[in-house]
């Protein structure tokens, strides 16, 4: 025993605190001694207080057995009612009437009422399953254990989406429980081609990750790449889908989101129907969606629940908002500092008169206001909701008004910064909104250095950068470049459902035709 344990932990004990490593267990199997197995498992888990075990005799016969589970993860009522009760009392007739001795197979096949059961031999998978909430049943004389699913799935109930609210769309949102989330998507897609693939990430957290796709619609190469990147992630633990997204992103240094996250099942449904891939992470209410393009990030769930003309106009407005949120302070600086001649005379004079008492140049004025705005936004997020409203009133209205009256900033600058902030909130992707907030600063510097030429070159640089970005092999500006006319039906505008016969070309599909209303009417 001592020799075995020293072999197991030998490498780690040298000069280090003892840390059991699952890698070392991959070749070790359970022994035929059930009590020894339980002791070993407990030892491997550092004898934590919440690891519970229960010794008993199967059907009152002289066959010692033992269950081990983690109190906080496993459902004790399942263990009591579906494991211990049948094995100890209810299966006695089965044990007595059966031919031959009581085998593990017989116990497995005849003494359990429900739940999934699998046989385990190796210690690594045994420990991992117990840590996921399963219960191990060891029977004396067998070097194979039975792993019974007793995972507890309680958690927050399904509610509305806070981050992506919708006016007319479904009001359900994903929660932190993986099983519930998978149920939400299974409920919507009753297609046997819906594939769910499980893998684990995190050397220590062993977080369950489920990759969702629809066979025949999604690109198998992209799916393989997603799985490859996820399985190659080396990290202690992972908490959020966004964190995983950054780890598997094509360019982790990009300020632009190269993956999409959503908490809306209807949104995931639409993306799966387009051939994209969803990644669920246990414990996260957000689902990762890849690949993503800039036009996709400009789409909102409500676009699909409105009339196509209305939706198209709103979407165009959103694109205008994107440009305003990035460019308006820099254009103001370039026009006032470098090229006042670009403005109509009356407007130029009006701006000049409002700026006459301001002691700062336009760039300082703009930077000052932008920094204050950023601070206000941060304060708004951190503060409790009740106080948050006060901050927005004090920050937005009182300070803005006071700054103008004190002559620190011009009224037009307050208008510009306010419009900029509102436009950045009009973007459906929060991460894209954050990117635009950051971009304003280099654009302002370009404007103050080179005027409108600097802004133009900044835009071209940004365009080149965006054009170089890729999300899982798909160009970030796909649909806009290269031109894919069929994809334009759902890019800057959204056409009617009957015209959207084909799925987006940016992903290779085996089944590229949607079963549209138009097709059905032929």
């Amino acid at each position, binding site marked *: 025993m001592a020799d075995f344990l020293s072999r197991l932990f030998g490498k780690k004990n040298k000069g280090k605190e003892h840390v059991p490593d699952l890698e070392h267990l991959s070749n070790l199997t359970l022994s035929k001694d059930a009590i020894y197995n339980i002791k070993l498992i407990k030892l491997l888990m550092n004898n934590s207080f919440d690891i519970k075990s229960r010794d008993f005799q199967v059907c009152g016969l002289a066959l010692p057995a033992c269950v081990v589970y983690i109190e906080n993860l496993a459902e004790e009522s399942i263990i009591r009612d579906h494991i211990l009760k049948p094995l100890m009392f209810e299966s006695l007739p089965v044990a007595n009437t059966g031919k031959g001795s009581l085998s593990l197979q017989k116990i497995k096949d005849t003494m359990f009422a429900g739940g999934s059961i699998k046989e385990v031999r190796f210690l690594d998978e045994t420990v991992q399953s117990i840590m996921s909430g399963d219960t191990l049943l060891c029977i004396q004389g067998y070097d194979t254990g039975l792993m019974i699913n007793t995972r507890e799935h309680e958690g927050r109930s399904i509610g509305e989406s806070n981050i992506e609210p919708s006016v007319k769309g479904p009001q359900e949102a994903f929660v932190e429980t993986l099983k519930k989330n998978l149920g939400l998507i299974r409920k919507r897609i009753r297609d046997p081609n819906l594939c769910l693939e499980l893998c684990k990430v995190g050397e220590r957290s062993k977080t369950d990750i489920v990759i969702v796709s629809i066979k025949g619609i999604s*690109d198998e*190469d*992209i799916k393989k*790449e997603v799985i490859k990147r996820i399985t190659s992630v080396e990290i202690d633990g992972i908490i959020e889908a966004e964190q995983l997204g950054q780890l598997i992103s094509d360019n982790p240094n990009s300020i632009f989101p190269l993956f999409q996250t959503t908490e809306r099942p209807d949104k995931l449904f639409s993306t799966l129907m387009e051939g994209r891939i969803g990644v669920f992470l246990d414990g996260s209410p957000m689902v990762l969606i890849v690949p993503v393009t800039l036009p996709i990030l400009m789409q909102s769930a409500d676009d699909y629940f409105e009339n196509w003309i209305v939706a198209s106009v709103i979407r165009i407005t959103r694109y205008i908002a994107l440009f305003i949120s990035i460019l308006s302070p820099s254009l103001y600086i370039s026009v006032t500092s*470098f*090229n006042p*001649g*670009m*403005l*109509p*005379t*009356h*407007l130029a004079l009006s701006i000049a008169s409002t700026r006459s008492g301001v002691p700062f140049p336009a760039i300082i004025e703009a930077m000052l206001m932008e920094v204050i705005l950023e601070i206000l936004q941060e304060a708004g997020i951190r503060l409790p909701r009740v106080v948050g409203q006060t901050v927005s009133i004090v920050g937005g209205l009182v300070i803005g008004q006071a700054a103008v009256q004190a002559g620190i900033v011009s009224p037009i600058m307050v208008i510009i910064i306010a419009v900029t902030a509102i436009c950045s909130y009009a973007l459906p992707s929060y991460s894209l909104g954050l990117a635009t907030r950051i971009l304003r600063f280099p654009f302002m510097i370009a404007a103050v250095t*080179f*005027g*409108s*030429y*600097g802004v*133009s*070159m900044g*835009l*071209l*640089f940004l*365009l*080149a*950068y*965006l*054009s*170089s970005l890729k999300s*899982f*092999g*798909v*160009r970030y*500006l796909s649909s*806009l*470049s*290269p*031109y894919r006319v069929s994809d334009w039906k759902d890019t800057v505008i959204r056409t009617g459902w009957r015209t959207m016969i084909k799925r987006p070309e940016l992903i*290779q599909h085996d089944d590229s035709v949607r079963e549209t209303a138009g097709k059905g009417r032929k």
Partner: protein
Amino acid sequence: MKADTLRPSQVMSIVAIAAMGVDLLMVQNTMVSYAGRDAWISLLLGGFLGIFFGGFMYYLANLYPDKDLPQIFVEVAGKYIGRLLIIPLLIYVLFHTGLSIRIFAQTLLMFLLDRTPIFAIVILMVIVVVYTVYKGIYTLSGVIDIIFPFAIVTVTMLILLSFQQAEFDFIKPVLYNNYPKVLRGSFLGLVQFTGFGHITYVLCYAHGSKISWKWYVTGAGIPIVLYVALTIVTIMAFNPMGVISLTFPTLTLSKSIEFPVTFLERLESFVAMLWISIAFGSISLFTFSSVRNFVALFNIRNEKFVKLATVIHIPLLTIVALAVKSGLKVIEYYLKLNYVLAALTIVIFPAITIIAAFKKRREGKA
């Protein structure tokens, strides 16, 4: 995952934008100075010649679908003669690009940034251009795709708005006592469309996509139509003598447009801003070609050194752009470069194409 490839529409927009660089602002001056009121006919004929000679290059590129122009030179003419032939091509492309940047900077100096040092304008342009080229042809084509519709709309709007001040009498009588000049001018017209040659630099990136002749002709046809229309409308607005006195007639044309709406009082500033992107697209494509020439000339295979060859274009282009002090001399040299281009277009490219065709036929028989 899908491999990157250029699609036919991208090749079309590349061919179109490459031909619409800094020349867009002064093509009328160059042509009218030579062919007078019938300059637009010379330009039209030049366009047809451009498509014809470009056809050789299109055919040549299709003979070697996985090679660009300088690589084809080496393949067809051999290691030494091929590289020798690359040298005039390299010089032309490098100097054309550098001088285009300089003319671009001078124009901005006149219309947008009167107090900014020319060095600063040049260096900013060069850095952004080299960054785009550094990111590769697919990034560059992505930028061109976005620029392309804006370029077309801007120039078309300018042409349409300028008709309000057009006098048809200024282009009449058509071809009266002017045949020889119009015909000779067509060769000058031909060199306005140097961008067509980019087909031989980009076709090898259209793996698997069949770039048909119609895409090439469409790409070439767009700048021809726009240039001819722009020349006609400029002559009709300012008369031939007036056009000769204008260094950048396109900007002057936009300046002369009168709007009833006060919001667009200074249209030329907006045209200049939009033209920045057109010039950027064209200059980037020429820089890309210049890098490919360097790569073929020095037989660079390692991707790191290809990147280095791209980065080296920052000092190279800056030096070429700023080497000449006088702005007028720059335009003079820019126009003189056309002789090198004429020799390449009329002699070397067709000769290489014919040799390549024979070589391919012989290989086919063998």
